[in-house]
């Protein structure tokens, strides 16, 4: 291993982020529709257990409307500061997402699942990119989790963005 390569490795270890390994895993599901894009997040079992312990206040292993409202206010909405770990890409630039609608939370097979929607962008082709630039949260979008029907055509692709790994749903209609 060359001297320069070793140096590169060491400096990369500092400047590529101090927490650049994932601690939370979210399986993302995307359903593009004409007027909205429905997105769901399924948290990993460990994170789900922590969150459910906090937010299922009556411990009935279900989330009622008041618990869901509190989750939205206390946990979900603050993530808007991080663009909900996604960006819209119109072919030229990435656009942050700050407005979401119809938030819902459920417990499915011991996993906490958030479902929400965002408005469908006006452009005919777009990409919805999922990532946490600090890689503390791993957003994972598998091809089968992109549910596309006519008039849309869709494709999932993972890509390495140097300091983080991202998935994108490419949608055209």
């Amino acid at each position, binding site marked *: 291993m060359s001297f320069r390569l070793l140096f590169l490795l060491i400096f990369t270890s500092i400047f590529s982020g101090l927490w650049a390994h*994932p601690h939370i895993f979210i399986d993302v599901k995307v359903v593009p529709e004409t007027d909205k894009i429905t997105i769901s997040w399924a948290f990993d079992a460990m994170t789900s257990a922590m969150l459910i312990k906090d937010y299922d206040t009556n411990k009935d292993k279900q989330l009622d409307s008041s618990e869901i409202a509190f989750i939205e206010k206390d946990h979900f909405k603050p993530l808007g500061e991080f663009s909900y770990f996604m960006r819209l890409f119109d072919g030229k630039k990435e656009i942050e997402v700050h407005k979401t609608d119809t938030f819902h939370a459920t417990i499915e097979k011991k996993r906490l699942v958030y479902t929400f929607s965002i408005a469908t962008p006006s452009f005919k082709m777009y990409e919805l990119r999922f990532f946490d630039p600090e890689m503390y949260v791993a957003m994972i979008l598998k091809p089968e989790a992109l549910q596309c029907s006519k008039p849309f055509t869709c494709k999932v692709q993972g890509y390495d963005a140097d300091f983080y790994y991202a998935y994108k749903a490419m949608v055209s209609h």
Partner: protein
Amino acid sequence: MIQLLIEANHYFNAELSTYFENIAEGEWFSVATLLAFSFAYGVVHALGPGHGKALLSGYLLAHPKLKTSHIFRIGFFIALVHAFSALVLSLSATYMIHASATKLLRDVTLPMTQVSGGLILLMGCWILFEVVRSRRDVEKVDTKKELSVIILSGIVPCPGVMTLSFFAMTLGELYIGIVAALCMSLGMGLTISLVGFVTSRLTHLSMIQTQPLWFWVLRVIGAVMVIGIGAVLVGFSGARSF
């Protein structure tokens, strides 16, 4: 490479959850597998860039005469302190102050990171002062700062260990959770030590050994790295809101 790292972490995280659930349902033969997977999860978990490895690398560049056994000792102790602080926080939150796990993680991590960053910064300045002062005499470098490196880089609790231990407690498997967390920290220690070992080899290259100026510059770079890590940690914005 990053994708592989994410998928490996995801895989071990999911497997550990399953083994914990199996044990909670009475499948005690899963304990051995759980502990082996905890160790492997630690190895993989520490493969990503982190301040512990960066701090150790900087320290080792500044202190090139450390023995390999010292390097491994520092590496393993950094990981143990990292896991131990997470365990103490998790246990205190659950059994003493009855605090929310997620809120604790988001409220405690930021100030602890910044405080340890400030101390690392000061330590880096001290190392730089020593390196500059002892330019012609490497042997005079004080290696007793090992403990400071271990504590300062390990004291920020590992979110991975906290999540794992909270999960174990949720299932009523506190003791197995503690042992699994220790196994995980041993795995992390192995990775951190190996990174430190590779870094220390840098100072053994012939072009470094035969050029005193290069040798000294490398040590200065190591000290500056430690200062840089401290500065970055002090300025940490706390994007960790989960």
